[in-house]
């Protein structure tokens, strides 16, 4: 058991390191010179000497490998560097931006879970087969709707037309209510799809028939037997869902004008502010890795069969 946890933790660290390296290669080595691009602009009126000083201060003069070692070293020490655009420490920018995104994530994740649960129940228990088949198609169709469009329509209808939730001049939880709920729809689609196909596999098993033959009601079978069996495969995509929420935040915060990590990322891309972009990518990878590790560690608690294989494997 301990060995299993340790090997999973090692794997998680490896993925984190790999993703860090990949984002470094993409963002900092190959264009090489975000600094040059930025400060070369003749309008800034900087002399070549000043530019090369600035380059040195960002470490852009060094070879790619030395830069990599430097960035990896300071990242491990918890230093995320400075924004090329504003010169502000990246960590300070993140600190200012994360509460909005966290609230957005909470609303959209909570909304997605409720939506997925309600919808899955309906799709599994609906009375007629054609109706169930039709409901089964909905998550696939929902994932074909672009988030930004959905959110724009939501603003037009909910905010402008029905005047239910204001979107201008709001802050705190009110500000993330509409965007969070809109984002919940595309987030819930993959959750529902994975859960439904897992649930259908479970429901095709003989023990479900045996339960029905004992007089158990469909609702009871769903919650007491199908749910615990279908949960583990659904949980395996939670890491992915986290990434989807962060990516969704980029679009959502742009549409609603919220100052969160997504907005930060969007501006970083626009300004080629690689230090900020890399920090946000690192956050999303770290979240993915931590969530996946937690799910892996919890899996044996949910499924007793895994407990035995691991005990056997470790012996």
């Amino acid at each position, binding site marked *: 058991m301990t060995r299993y946890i340790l090997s999973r933790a090692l794997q998680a660290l*490896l*993925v*984190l390191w*790999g*993703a860090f*390296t*990949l*984002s470094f290669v*993409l*963002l900092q080595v*190959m*264009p090489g010179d975000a600094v040059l691009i930025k400060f070369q602009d003749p309008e800034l009126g900087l002399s070549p000497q000043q530019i090369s000083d600035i380059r040195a201060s960002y470490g852009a003069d060094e070879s790619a490998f030395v830069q990599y070692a430097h960035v990896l070293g300071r990242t491990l020490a918890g230093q995320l560097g400075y924004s090329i655009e504003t010169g502000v420490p990246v960590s300070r920018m993140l600190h200012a931006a994360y509460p909005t995104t966290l609230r957005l994530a909470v609303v959209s994740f909570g909304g997605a879970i409720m939506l997925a649960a309600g919808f899955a129940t309906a799709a599994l228990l609906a009375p007629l087969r054609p109706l169930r088949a039709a409901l089964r198609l909905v998550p*696939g*169709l929902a994932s*074909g*709707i*672009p*988030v*930004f*469009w*959905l959110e*724009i*329509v939501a*603003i*037009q209808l909910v905010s*402008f037309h029905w005047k239910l939730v204001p979107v201008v001049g709001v802050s705190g939880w009110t500000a993330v209510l509409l965007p969070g709920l809109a984002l919940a729809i595309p987030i819930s689609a993959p959750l529902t799809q994975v859960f439904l196909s897992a649930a259908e596999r479970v429901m095709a098993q003989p023990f479900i028939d045996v339960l029905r033959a004992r007089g158990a009601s469909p609702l009871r079978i769903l919650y007491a037997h199908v749910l615990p069996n279908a949960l583990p495969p659904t949980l395996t995509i939670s*890491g*992915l869902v986290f*990434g*989807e929420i*962060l*990516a969704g935040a*980029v*679009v959502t915060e*742009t*549409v609603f004008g919220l100052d969160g990590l997504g907005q930060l*990322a*969007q501006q970083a*891309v*626009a300004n*080629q502010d*690689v230090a900020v*972009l890399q920090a*946000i*990518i690192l956050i*999303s*990878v770290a979240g*993915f*890795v931590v969530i996946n590790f937690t799910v892996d560690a919890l899996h044996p608690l949910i499924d007793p069969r895994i407990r035995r294989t691991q005990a056997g494997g470790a012996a």
Partner: protein
Amino acid sequence: MNTALAQWRHRHDVTLPRLLGVLPVLLLVLVALCPGLFTPLDPLAGQTDERLMAPSATHWFGTDQFGRDVFSRIMHGSFSTLSAAVLAVAISLLVAIPLGLAAGLGGRRLSGAILAGADMVLAIPELFLSLSIITLIGPGATHVAFAVGISQVAGFTRMIRTEVVRVRATEYVEAAFGIGSTFWQVVWRHVVPNSLAPALSLATLRLGTAILAISTICFLGYGPSPPTPEWGLMITEGRNYLATAWWLTTFPGLAIIFSAWAATLLSRAIRMDP
């Protein structure tokens, strides 16, 4: 002739729902290749006296702030999005098929290395990955296609590898070795067709995902620049008239949804298993 057709239909299991599933994509292809067939109006030239007009018999989807016909812009814009999506999926398949086959057929070390690499890439959300690539190579229609294509490689590789491993473990592959087929004969006759068929059906499904990803990036402003008609970009531009001209954002969005759904239908139609 009739019986030959019937035989062909039977062998390929051509049914009415399947044929219907192909229709929306055929329509899209036609629109993308010959938008002129569907609208006589110029997507770029605007009529200054016809600015921000609501949908009517002359302008089905209304006009924008320059008096350009939105319907015509959507028709002409389809080529940009659809060709970029096809290009993106083609790029990812081109890279992922050899990688996935190698990971499925190769030894423990090769397959382990490919999978570890794929897992690292998969840890980064696709949008962040394609935005990073855009930061590297700069914006533009083709660049967006390339970025979206590359960011889908890891997922495809894993998918193909899973299929290859599944097929390799079947009894019919064991049986093929049993009747004296060599490794490469088995790979070519049984493993490749049986593992790539579901992978290709999923690739079609990913066409829809690519359409969404591309229009998202164009919406964020890294695609083609104005005045090019592009669905995502049209929505960005239309955002300034949210309260007054709903048609500027609604119709391009519906076009994106229609295309994504068409891809989903196509993937269901070509799926081989019953």
